[in-house]
């Protein structure tokens, strides 16, 4: 168990989950400088949207990996739409308000989302009835399951697609422009509100995909599952340099690896302490992150 290859693989696997969530965090922060506390809960919402789809259409879909992909698409649409609504209802009215107000609103949104799901689905963990266990094989002394590999592949495909979207399409160019200077964008005829909505859609959809995968992999979901991963995703975004998308992925993989080795050293009950202590350490030593640039506050 404690061989190096296994630890590295576990770290990369967990890191790819973190990356999907961290991307949304980082994108939203990059564009409107908002810490969307509810982002981890959108991940949770994705898992529950998947659960509902699964219970509604399990007969038609069957089990297996194809079903998982369909469920994931539905959940991504649902969480993406929810992200847009959340931005419209809770964040847009406060765009010019003091930063503290927006942060508190985000906490309220997170709280409402968690306990809304607790009301709707009951507070106890729910079982995810989809079989993605499959077989396993050995590689360089590490035990890999096909399900893990497939999920990592899906995550990589999503990340590459997002990267291409941001770097090569008109929407992506508008997003980067808004991140740079929203006022100038307004003058240049970019519909800033629409760009922000799209950003929320993309970020939330990715988090939703991660939620479905986590549900399928761990076999159960509960309404507080987004809390810790939201914090971890933020940690990953900070490690990579918040606002920087490739940085977020890098940070997530680094965090996954660190956790994997930390667990091997100290035991799994210290996993979260290790991750958050690392966040504090990182903010002390290099607050701009690995790939971030030094940001000067403009008045």
């Amino acid at each position: 168990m404690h061989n190096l290859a296994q630890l590295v693989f576990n770290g990369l696997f967990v890191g790819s989950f973190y990356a999907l969530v961290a991307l949304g965090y980082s994108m939203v922060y990059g564009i409107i400088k908002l810490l969307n506390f509810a982002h981890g809960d959108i991940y949770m919402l994705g898992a529950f949207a998947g659960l509902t789809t699964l219970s509604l259409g399990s007969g038609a879909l069957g089990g297996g990996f194809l079903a998982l992909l369909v469920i994931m698409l539905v959940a991504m649409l649902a969480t993406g739409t929810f992200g847009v609504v959340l931005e419209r209802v809770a964040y847009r009215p406060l765009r010019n308000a003091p930063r503290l107000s927006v942060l508190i609103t985000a906490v309220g949104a997170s709280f409402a989302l968690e306990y809304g799901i607790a009301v709707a689905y009951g507070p106890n963990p729910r079982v995810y009835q989809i079989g993605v266990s499959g077989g396993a094989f050995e590689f360089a002394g590490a035990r890999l399951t096909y399900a893990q590999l497939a999920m990592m592949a899906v995550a990589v495909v999503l990340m590459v697609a997002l990267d291409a979207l941001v770097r090569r399409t008109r929407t992506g160019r508008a997003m980067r422009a808004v991140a740079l200077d929203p006022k100038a964008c307004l003058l240049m005829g970019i519909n800033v509100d629409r760009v922000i909505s799209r950003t929320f859609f993309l970020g939330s959809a990715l988090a939703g995909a991660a939620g479905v995968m986590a549900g399928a992999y761990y076999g159960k979901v509960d309404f507080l599952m987004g809390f810790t991963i939201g914090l971890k995703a933020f940690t990953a975004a900070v490690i990579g340099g918040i606002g920087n998308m490739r940085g977020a992925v890098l940070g997530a993989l680094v965090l996954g690896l660190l956790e994997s080795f930390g667990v091997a050293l100290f035991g799994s009950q210290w996993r979260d302490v290790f991750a958050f202590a690392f966040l504090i350490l990182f903010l002390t030593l290099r607050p701009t992150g690995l790939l971030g640039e030094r940001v000067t506050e403009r008045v």
Partner: protein
Amino acid sequence: MVMNNELPTPSGEVGEEASAYARAVDERGQANVALAGHGVGRPRARLAGALSAVLASRWLGAVVAVLAVALPLLNADTYLIRIATDALIFVMLAVGLNIVVGYCGLLDLGYAAFFAIGAYTSGVLATKFGWPLLATAPVVVVAAVAGGLLIGGPTLRLRSDYLAIVTLGFGEIIRITANNLDFTGGPNGLYGIPDFGDFGLRSDIAIYWVTAVVVCVAVLFASRLGRGKLGRAWRFVREDEDAAEAMGIHTYKVKFAAYIAGAVFGGLAGVLFAAHQTAISPPSFNFLWSALILMAVVLGGMGSTPGVVVGALAISLLPELLRGAENWRYLIFGLLLIAVMIFRPQGLLPARTGEPKPRRRFGRAARKPSEVEA
């Protein structure tokens, strides 16, 4: 007018500009606070203004304090005393968080961490080393300050958003650590924590009285802290950090002071909590607590001591009235948090803005004779 301009400078001819500068320096602090003191959002409604004026009168505060202390004489029902003690401890937490969030505008999402540090420090010293509970209070203060230094040190230099999420992480670190260590009792926690001594009274009433006195002093202290020089600096930093820095306020130090003050309040509330509960365990200090304290501060009115006290009483007593349906309650709290921020960001009972009235009157009175002379 001309005379008026020359009057403040004894040297007369040296120049108008010099005198204007000197006057500006003289009045700088107050002028800025008058600007900074305006509410966070739109102008507040007249009714709420009148209500908060009533609430801010010191007589009302005194009456409430006397009522709080006299409660066991009026009705010594065990259940009533228990929930009243809980409510008072919650008031202390809310007032402490108000220093950080309300006065200084720093969002602390892991306030329960300091509460936990206080409760566990005094609990461990009292149960494992046999210290009397009162003797643990200084150690608790030191521990809370140390925790504040550890978290505030690196993060207060950064943007305020970072502080929010780092404190959230810190809250989890403390809770998980308490859960994992042996000397904190692991998941079972600590039990058999002694009280402060019963002074020949029924033990719950003795604890109630200690709590009531400590909380009254704490509320008074926090409210006076907010009105002093440091309080003005806090509000200035809250309204505009860059402007505050440009005016010569050491924003890092000022923010640190707020954070440490909040930590000490939280720690001492933890001691009271440990004495009251006699048993503490990690789940008592989860994020829910931090969120509820924040809720009390935001709902009552950030920066307004009477508002925060009322908010804390409401948040801690409502569950007693609405038993069951917890998830619904938290769902409504979350939605309320959003609604308050959008429609009434200053809270239900906002702070009165500007300088306290008496001082302004004295200022005018002092200036008048000189105008007459001129």
